[in-house]
């Protein structure tokens, strides 16, 4: 029988909904799994991460009360609260 290695998972909250992510995943990944765009642009377009390295700011969200955080560089921790475009 082959062994299956399942990575540990944690739960974060995106716009009030629980999302399960593997430990080590970023908040940007959590938002993608939650199916929400990270933000709305100045003219109202939905946007997701572009650069995934903290340069473009398309992934910014309010994380644990602090606004404008780069979610692609923020590791998920259990119970983190994420809200997009408040």
């Amino acid at each position, binding site marked *: 029988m082959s062994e299956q290695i399942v990575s540990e998972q944690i739960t974060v909250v995106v716009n009030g909904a629980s999302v399960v992510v593997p430990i080590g995943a970023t908040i940007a990944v959590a938002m993608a799994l939650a199916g929400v765009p990270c933000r709305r642009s*100045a003219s109202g377009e939905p946007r997701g991460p572009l650069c995934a390295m903290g340069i473009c700011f398309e992934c*910014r969200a309010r994380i644990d*009360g*602090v*606004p*404008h955080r780069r979610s692609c560089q923020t590791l998920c921790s259990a119970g983190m609260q994420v809200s997009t475009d408040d």
Partner: protein
Amino acid sequence: MSSGNFDVVIVGAGIVGAACAEECSRVGLRVAVVDQDAIGGGATAAGMGHIVTMDDSEAQFSLTRYSQTLWQELRPELPQDVEYEQCGTIWVAADDDEMKEVFRKRAYYSHRGVPVEVLNSAELERLEPNLRKGMAGGLLVPEDAVLYPPCAARFLIERAQSHGAKLNLGTAVVKVGGGEVRLADGTLFATRTIVNAAGTWAKTLTPGISVKKRKGHLVITDRCPGFVRHQLVELGYLKSAHSVSADSVAFNVQPRQTGQLLIGSSRQYGSETQDVDSEILSRMVECAQHYLPSLANASAIRVWTGFRAATPDKLPLIGPWPPDSTVYLATGHEGLGITTSLGTAKLLAAQLTGGPPEIPAEPYLPLRMETLEHAHV
């Protein structure tokens, strides 16, 4: 290389030069505007775009109030990108002493027909919930406004062009005087009148003008819609603007239409470089955080500096320059260039056409500086 014959050549396409160009061309003068850089590239680009009625002196009140009403009249014609917003100003009183100042201001403005409203502590908190709790109150001036200056300057230049004004950008001006404006590429403008509206460069073009550079810092944040609803200014602002020697900071925050916050203000003499001064910036930000504690977490996207053109008596120079009968000045507006640009333009155009000014022009005449200097001797 000669470039036409003009009635007026305006040096400087910042907000003041642009306003003068618009007014002069509208009343039928043949106008040219020249600038070494882009439209609104100097203090116009760096400043806050606050349209405010000030009570620092009778002459300052007169010009700012006059100009503010002109902006209100112009408002319906302003395009979207000028971002004109009549959000009003709240002068914030931190303690009872400053509250006395609020009442003094209320009396001053009311007496002169400016609508104002005194806010007590609770009312202030209701209007601006992100201010530190425990403020004594404030004075709301609902007719004050904000806009985005580089686009306002462009709008005025375009209007001037629609009245026939000519625009020459991107070449340095090397000589001004004797009815001529000469550019670095040899272009020569012959004109009846030259208007020096070159702000912090005015003194290089017309040596002897009593204008000094007063450096300021600004910070802009990412979007925080609704965090602040009015332009918020501390009552200590006037102390800072008054000081003629010391470096000073004062709380001054503006909400932009995008929801971004513009944070100021600082004043320094003697610094000639555009470098950001970490020390002054730090004091300015600490001051802002004192009034708006939850500002601490907002994201500061950019920091920049700019130079205001400051005069010894804090009033601009509008009118003939005695040593050269072909030169008029429209400069020295310190931190009130945006507000008073339209009023300046009206006064200047009246002087050039011989018409009656709508407010007394004497307090702003460059001639007064000779008297001032003699008084200091």
